């Protein structure tokens, strides 16, 4: 292992051990809550579409909306300042605070002020800055940075917080329960709010038409911070502006559900400052509040800091639609294990952080954690504004690849020609060109498998491309799936007598490694009266795409479409066994192919069990397939991340149940393998930790005797590593014996 890999692995191991449990409990709880809460919402998809449309329109018209907002804010008696960058914003905020002779500023949690590091600027000017969000205050006392967008101290346990309070405040009696800790914090912070001169908040949204801010909170600290002092400074990214107050509505219904699984947070403030509420002068305790003259002052600081440039960047622009709800973080297997202190960048965290950090801090910051996105796509449906977060990660990975430079390795360059510039990391080149590796592997099997299994070869693989020695490698089959199909004489159901005609797509793994599932797919389809062909089709491009090799992936897309177009024209269905390849056809190819080509391939492609489901539901007999024995203990089924994102898990379950199997499905978001990710030495332990929930579930009493089936190659390999019993693809279970 190289030293940087070693360092990375050590760092991940450290955070797994110190913060992993608290982060896992918090994020998985939020994520489960999200499913429940959006499940109660009849018009969830429509709300997402509306939210997306509002953000698309707002970002498109942003300069015009900012002008309108300036008029609204000034008409209300406030001030709008657009800051170019962090220094500019900090200078302005400091000047406002100094003009008020403020000694204490109370803050309500704001990620944008974290981005600016405004606390440091104010402290340098001898101003006391107090975070009033309970989690944020805990971090301020501990001198730490947030690890989560909305639950900044998610990595801290109750015991840890109790200890921190005890030492910081030199308490005689330790605080124990969450209630005691919260009430202690309420009292302490209440004193600070009472004496504060300036209240500072973020803003979740800002309406250009009226100058109204939308603030989403549960604790009430933002309300107190705004209503007690006479000066309010709101700091927000310029992307938070939307046209009107009515545009807030879908977000109000989506943001709490997406973030923590609350239908709505306790408080949604619509502030059109300066508010008519009187200030609260605790140093004049006996003067009725309404007697004083309310001379409120309001400053809105809109921060550009790279955002307007992101708006011009076709790929990063979507990042600006982000409403910072944290659903992408909470639904991410890797984030659930290590949290934002490993996953995140300087400020933002979770899947979308790659976009934010690239736009705000630069590629070098984004590069530090971009690898933690495995492209599993589980965040895609979780995002309330439908941002294709894995795509942003892929694009950034591509830019990192191209930007890093470095010397060429001629051996690898010669072995694996591709469209990418030289200087690509060797590991990426190896995994990205797995199609070449697989061809060589099959051609030289079983020698290749034996060689790959020897100690010197494993050491070389570890050293050059970073494959962890603890991982079993795929075992290449000498006879490929296609060769088997040719040898048996091709199709056994003649086209003339067939119910339908189908291409079984010989994906890389089915063709070279998981050959049995290919054979099972052919036998199953033929049993149901389908004329099957297995033509030569290039690999989908999933492997290079995962490594950020976008132009190589694009070339694969064009070649795959060229090879399949004639079959589609001949009205043959395209049946895909490997879910990550089907996801290419249905999702990523939209970025590469002409719209009509994409649509035709998308329309004609099916996941193999989805296809079997279709055949059974237009009249094919279930008796033609394998059914369970009388004493069958049932099936434990793990779908595949991308397959679940496409909504295809239910077809496999339905087919198995139609055939009489009792099925339980995995509850975890991701098995933790995700293509090449789990092979890499620096991520091996993280990968195994992400897989822990599925191991626990499938080894529990009600699942321990069940047959384990999984749809994806990576999932099968991870399950093989996690469990002590064999795994199969579901089509192998149903294929006629």
């Amino acid at each position, binding site marked *: 292992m190289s030293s940087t890999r070693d360092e990375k692995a050590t760092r991940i191991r450290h955070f797994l051990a110190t913060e992993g449990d608290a982060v896992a409990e918090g994020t998985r709880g939020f994520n489960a809550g999200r499913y429940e809460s959006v499940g109660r919402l009849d018009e969830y998809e429509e709300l997402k579409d509306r939210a997306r449309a509002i953000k698309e329109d707002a970002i498109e018209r942003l300069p015009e909306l900012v002008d309108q907002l300036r008029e609204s804010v000034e008409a209300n008696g406030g001030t709008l300042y657009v800051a170019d960058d962090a220094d500019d914003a900090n200078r302005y905020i400091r000047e406002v605070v100094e003009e008020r002779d403020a000694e204490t500023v109370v803050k309500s949690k704001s990620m944008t002020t974290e981005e600016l590091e405004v606390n440091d600027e104010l402290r340098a000017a001898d101003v006391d800055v107090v975070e009033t969000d309970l989690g944020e205050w805990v971090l301020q006392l501990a001198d730490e940075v947030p690890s989560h967008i909305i639950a900044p101290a998610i990595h801290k346990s109750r015991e840890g917080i109790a200890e921190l309070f005890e030492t910081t405040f030199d308490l005689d009696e330790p605080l124990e329960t*969450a209630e005691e800790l919260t*009430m202690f914090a309420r009292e302490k912070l209440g004193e600070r709010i009472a004496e504060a001169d300036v209240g500072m908040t973020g803003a979740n949204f800002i309406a250009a038409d009226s100058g109204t801010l939308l603030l989403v909170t549960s604790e009430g600290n933002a309300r107190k911070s705004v209503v007690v002092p006479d000066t309010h400074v709101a700091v927000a990214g310029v992307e938070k502006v939307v046209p009107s107050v009515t545009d807030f509505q879908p977000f109000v219904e989506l943001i709490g559900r997406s973030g923590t699984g609350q239908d709505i947070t306790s408080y949604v403030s619509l502030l059109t400052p300066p508010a008519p509420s009187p200030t609260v002068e605790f140093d004049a305790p006996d003067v009725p509040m309404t007697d004083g003259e309310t001379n409120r002052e309001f400053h809105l600081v809109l921060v550009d800091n790279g955002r307007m440039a992101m708006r011009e960047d076709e790929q990063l622009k979507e990042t600006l639609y982000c409403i910072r709800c944290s659903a992408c973080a909470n639904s991410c297997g890797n984030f659930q294990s290590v949290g934002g202190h490993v996953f995140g960048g300087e400020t933002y965290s979770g899947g979308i952080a790659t976009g934010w950090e690239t736009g705000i801090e630069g590629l070098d910051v984004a590069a530090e954690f971009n690898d933690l996105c495995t492209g599993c796509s589980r965040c895609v449906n979780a995002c309330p504004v439908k941002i294709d977060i894995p795509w942003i990660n892929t694009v950034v990975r591509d830019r990192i690849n191209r930007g890093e430079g470095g010397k060429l390795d001629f051996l690898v360059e010669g072995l694996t020609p591709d469209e990418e510039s030289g200087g690509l990391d060797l590991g990426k080149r190896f995994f990205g060109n797995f199609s070449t590796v697989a061809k060589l592997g099959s051609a030289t099997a079983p020698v290749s498998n034996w060689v790959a299994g020897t100690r010197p070869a494993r050491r070389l693989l570890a050293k050059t491309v970073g494959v962890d020695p603890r991982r079993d490698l795929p075992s290449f089959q000498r006879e490929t799936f296609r060769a088997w199909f040719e040898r048996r004489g091709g199709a056994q159901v003649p086209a003339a007598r067939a119910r339908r005609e189908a291409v079984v797509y010989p994906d890389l793994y089915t063709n070279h490694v998981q050959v049995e599932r290919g054979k099972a797919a052919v036998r199953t389809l033929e049993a149901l009266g389908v004329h099957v062909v297995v033509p030569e089709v290039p690999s989908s491009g999933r492997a290079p795409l995962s490594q950020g090799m976008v132009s190589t992936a694009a070339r694969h897309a064009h070649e795959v479409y060229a090879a399949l177009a004639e079959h589609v024209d001949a009205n043959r269905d395209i049946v895909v066994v490997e879910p990550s390849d089907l996801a290419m056809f249905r999702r990523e190819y939209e970025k590469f192919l002409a719209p009509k080509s994409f649509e035709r391939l998308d329309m004609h492609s099916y996941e193999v069990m989805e296809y079997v489901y279709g055949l059974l539901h237009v009249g094919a007999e279930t008796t033609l397939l394998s059914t369970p024995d009388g004493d069958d203990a049932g099936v434990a089924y793990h779908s595949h991340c991308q397959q679940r994102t496409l909504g295809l898990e239910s077809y496999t379950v339905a087919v198995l149940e139609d055939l009489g199997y009792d099925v339980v499905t995995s509850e975890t978001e991701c098995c933790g393998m995700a293509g090449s990710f789990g092979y890499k030495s620096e991520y091996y332990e993280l990968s195994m930790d992400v897989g822990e929930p599925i191991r626990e579930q499938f080894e529990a009493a009600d699942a321990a005797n069940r047959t384990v089936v999984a749809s994806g190659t990576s999932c099968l390999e991870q399950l093989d590593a996690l469990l002590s019993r064999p795994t199969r693809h579901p089509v192998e279970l149903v294929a006629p014996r």
Partner: protein
Amino acid sequence: MSAGTLSAFERSLGRLDVDSTRTVADELDDALASVTLDPVVGAPLPFGGCSLPDWVRTDPTPAELDEAKTGVTAAELAVADYGSVVIRATPDATEQVSLFPDVHVAVVRAADVVPGMPEAFERLAEWTADGDSAIVATGPSATADMGALVKGAHGPKEVRVVVVE
């Protein structure tokens, strides 16, 4: 507002552990007496025919605000789907009265309960266009930052709703 909307509102409040009482304008004093803890501060109700009893201290000082166990305010709008009450900020310190004491009692007219957020935002858009501010409050304040859900992080620990039919 239909009877269905009002009962949907009450069901939502039930899910939030918020007690609700139905009354009529003439009996508001008694209804409030049964849901408040002394000392009580309040902000005048902007509803015709409805006023706070004289034992509610309106126009409070900061000291009275600090000592009050209950704050009574109007909610000029409520959302049935969510059990939310909407408090408009006024020079009468409505916002403070609803925020500082441990118990917040919101007085809602049945006619002001709307079914969902789309209807609520129609009215909120009118208010904000006039320069007003409002809080959509759903249940008591809460936090889970200390390792378990606790009610009353900074705002009230308990919310009670009185619906005037």
